[in-house]
Each structure stands twice: as C-alpha cells, then as structure tokens.
C-alpha cells in the first residue's frame, strides 16, 4: 500500500463516505443548494437553516458521488453546525488552502477536517473535496430559497 493513497483515503474519510453524518433533508430549511461536479457526476443537495443571528443552526445534505466528495460533505456539516457566518467564511478559505496549497500548515481550527489534507497531492480531486463547500458558500450568498452551484462555472 502506497502512502499517498493512504493519506488521501484516511480511515476517517472512508468511514464518513460509508456512513455519512447529517445525511438527510431539513424540513424547515431556509435555503437548499444543489451542487454538482459535472466532470465526475458528484452531486450534493445541501439544506441550511439559520438562527436569528445568521449563524448556521442546522445543516444536512443528501447526494451521491465519490468517497472524497461525500466524506467532505459529511465532515463539513459536522464542523459548521452552530458556526457564525464569519467563522464559516474563514473555514472555507482555510479548507481551500488545506486541499490546494502544498506548503500550508493545517490550522488547528479546522479540527477533523485536516484529514482531507491528502487531497492536495491529487489536483484532479480538489473539485470533489470542494463541492460541499461551494454549496455552503452559495447558501450564505443566497440566504433563502433554492440555488444551484457547479464546480464547472458555465
């Protein structure tokens, strides 16, 4: 077993892809974002509910796709529940750096999400890892209703 592949598919990632957390729909979601990665056929549907301060009160997803996209969505929802908008944006940037920047030290604030670090060695898989995050970014922008987002901007 080579190390790069083990680093990419850490046990935590495989576990989340097999048994995704926060998997399902939110009946009272404020916003629902359909995200797709047309190059791979990965799909996620993200439901978000905000509290009065605008923080993410609840967040769930459904969808299908590769282990990376599904585990990333699962880990993300666990991390973002209860976070303020500013914290979400900060984490989005940190996560993007984590999976793209060869040199960046993984900041502690990312917690469990740091297991996704192996993706940086697989540039073709960055879109898979980012799909859920693009959806949450869109959810913040949109605030209410339904939206779509794609890793391949038209």
């Amino acid at each position: 077993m080579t190390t790069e592949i083990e680093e990419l598919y850490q046990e935590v990632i495989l576990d989340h892809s097999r048994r995704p957390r926060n998997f399902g729909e939110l009946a009272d979601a404020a916003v629902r974002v359909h995200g797709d990665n047309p190059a791979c056929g990965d799909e996620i549907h993200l439901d978000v509910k905000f509290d009065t301060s605008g923080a993410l009160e609840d967040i769930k997803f459904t969808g299908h796709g590769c282990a990376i996209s599904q585990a990333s969505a699962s880990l993300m929802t666990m991390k973002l529940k209860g976070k303020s908008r500013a914290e979400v944006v900060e984490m989005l940037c940190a996560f993007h750096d984590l999976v793209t920047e060869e040199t960046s030290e993984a900041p502690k604030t990312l917690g469990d999400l740091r297991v996704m670090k192996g993706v940086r060695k697989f540039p073709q898989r960055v879109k898979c890892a980012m799909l859920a995050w693009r959806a949450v970014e869109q959810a913040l922008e949109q605030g209410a209703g339904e939206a779509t987002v794609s890793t391949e901007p038209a």
Partner: protein
Amino acid sequence: MHRIAASSVDWKAIRADFPILREQAHGHPLIYFDSAATSQKPRIVIEALRNFYEHENANVHRGLHTLSSRATEAYEKSRKRVAEYIGAASADEIVFTRGTTESINLVAQAWGGKFIREGDVILLTEMEHHSNLVPWQLLAERTGARLRFVPVRDNGTLDLDQLPSLLKSDVKLFAFTHISNSLGTINPVAQLCEKAHAVGALSLVDAAQSAGHLPMDVRVLGCDFLAFSGHKMCGPTGIGVLYGRADILDSMPPYHGGGEMIVSVALEKSAFKKAPHRFEAGTPSIAGAIGLAAAIDYIEQIGRAAIFEHDSQLARYAADRLTELAGTRVFGPKEERGALVGFVMDAAHPHDLTTFADQYGLAMRGGHHCNQPLMRRFGVSGTTRASFYFYNTVEEIDRMIEILHAAVRFFS
C-alpha cells in the same frame, strides 16, 4: 489486405515498438488501459515526425522551393494512403481535419448549413459521444431541424426494432457511431447505411473507436461520411479525417475561410478550390498527416483483422474476469465487443477506483466518457473503463483484476 491470424503475430515484439510502455507510474510498471481516449505511439511514427521536421519541413502548396515540394508531396501522399486504408474511391474524398470532432462539425456546418431546413430530422442514437451529438444540437438550433434518437437496449445494443418508426422520409441524415466508446457495442454499419439510403437519407459514421481496430472499407459499409482521429490509432494528435463521397463533398460550401482553400481572391469575393482543399483553410497539420500515414503503414503491417481478433479476445476476457468481483456490473454486449469494457463496482465510485488503480501503475478512465445521456440511460453517473489495444496483454488484465480485488478490500 493480408490476413494474419492473431495467433501467428508476435505480440511481445510489437509491444516493444512502443517506448512509452516501459514507463513506470508510482513505482509500478505502467499498464495502459486508456487507449480509447488516445492510443500510444510506436517508435516508427515518432520517427516519421522527426524525419519530417529534420528533412522535409516547409509549408505545403505554397513555395516553389525544394523543401516545399517535398512537404507537399509527403502530405498528399498521406492523403492517398488514408484513401487506400479505408477503401475510398479517390484521395479527393479525404479531408484532413484536427480529429473526429472537427470532421463532424465540418459536416454539420458545411453540409447541414446548406441542406438542412426547418422540420428536417437528424437521426442519432442514444450511445453517441458528445462530439456526434452537440454539433447536431447546434445545427438544430440554427435551422429548426429536429433530432431523433435510436434507443439503446439494456444489453448495450441499438434497439433496431424501433428503426421503422424513427427512420422515415423526414430524416436527412443518420449519424451513428461504429463502436461505442463506453459500451464497446459494434453497430451493424452496412445495414444501417442501407436503411438510411432506403428513405433517401445520408449516413455518417463516427469511426473514432473503429478506424484503427478493424478492417473497414467505406464502399462496403456504404456510408456517405466517415470521421476518425489519428491519435486513437497510433498517430499523432491534431490530425483526423473526414471521408465524404466525392459528389457530396463537391456540393458543399467551404467550412472555414482562409489561405489554401481558394483559387482566387478579390476584395469582395473569392473562388474556392475543389474538395478536399476547399475544406482545409490555413496551414494544415502537415507533420500530423505524415505521422498518420506512418501509423497506417504500421497497423497494416500487423493487419487489422489480427488486431481485432487480439483486442476483442482481451476485452471478452476482461469482461469475464470482472464478473468474479462481487458487486460488479459490466456494461455492453456479451458476445461481441470492441476493445474496451465499462463497469461499475458497488465498493467504490469510478473516480476513487481510478485514483486507487493509478497508484499501482494502472491507467483507466473513470467518468461519463463524453456520454452523459447514455450514462443517464443506464442510471449511473459514470463508469470505469478499461480500454485495450494490440500492445496490451492477458497478464495485464490479470493484474488489473488483482488491483480491483485490492480496491474492494480497501474501500469496503
């Protein structure tokens, strides 16, 4: 054509003609199972390109100097070679393009633009590569023509029982693939062309997956247009072919405007050359055409019948062995298939599988293979595809099965 049985060919020696097959990937010997995307190149083709650039390079049809004559001669000789290879009546029926995609776009724009009217129908199939679908969608948008599709059965073959209700006198062109790049299905080209002609329609064959893989003669097939790419048949990238029946090509207006394709140009209006030069505006891929002719020589030396026998044995063997793996669904016809096999495994998504396999030196393709409607038809977002050519071996397939077993253990 000289027919040799696959068993009498020294495939090991042939494999040694491909320098790249000695490469390693992630510390493992490369197993290249992505020839349907692009084939590898034998040394003799690489050397033909080098020889051209070292001894013959000049622009074609322009200069009166020695090198220009050499380049022009080599380029036009390549056209003749292609004509012979596919049984065209004359080299004038061979238009050099960048590849299958451009060949089909050329027909859609030049022929379609002139002959297609609102309400006309272009008949396609559900298994077309996007390059034999999108150009027709664009044409339909421009002209008000309609598209109709021959459905694909669960076993991966075309549902020809539907043909009578689809192929009617409103159909002006029936465009279909010879071999499906996802399913491996080999379509009955001659029969389909005959049916098209019976209702007064023309036929276009996408031969991207077949031109380098089996014997073919356009006069036996009876097609009006045939498109293929050099890079999938041991040739360089950037060169492809559109075969068009002479009278049809002559009836078509130019595709692109520019140098090389004109007889005379005044400021307001130009007179255009005859086919095929009318369709080759600008400096063509001269080295590409010469490389393609070298690839054709090489393929013919082995023999297309032997190649087909070898590759389809590999593909059938791979399809059989894949069924050993629990939770694996293999697509395409069982009995006869082209040199590829598409499959999905419960244990892992195609992208996880191909990433995993790559770590062991095994190059496969995962995804929709430019066949999104077909993937939808089969209820999957993508498949993993192992595609073969005559340099691949049974041992490599055995290794693939081992790697896939390891993937199942890893991901389950």
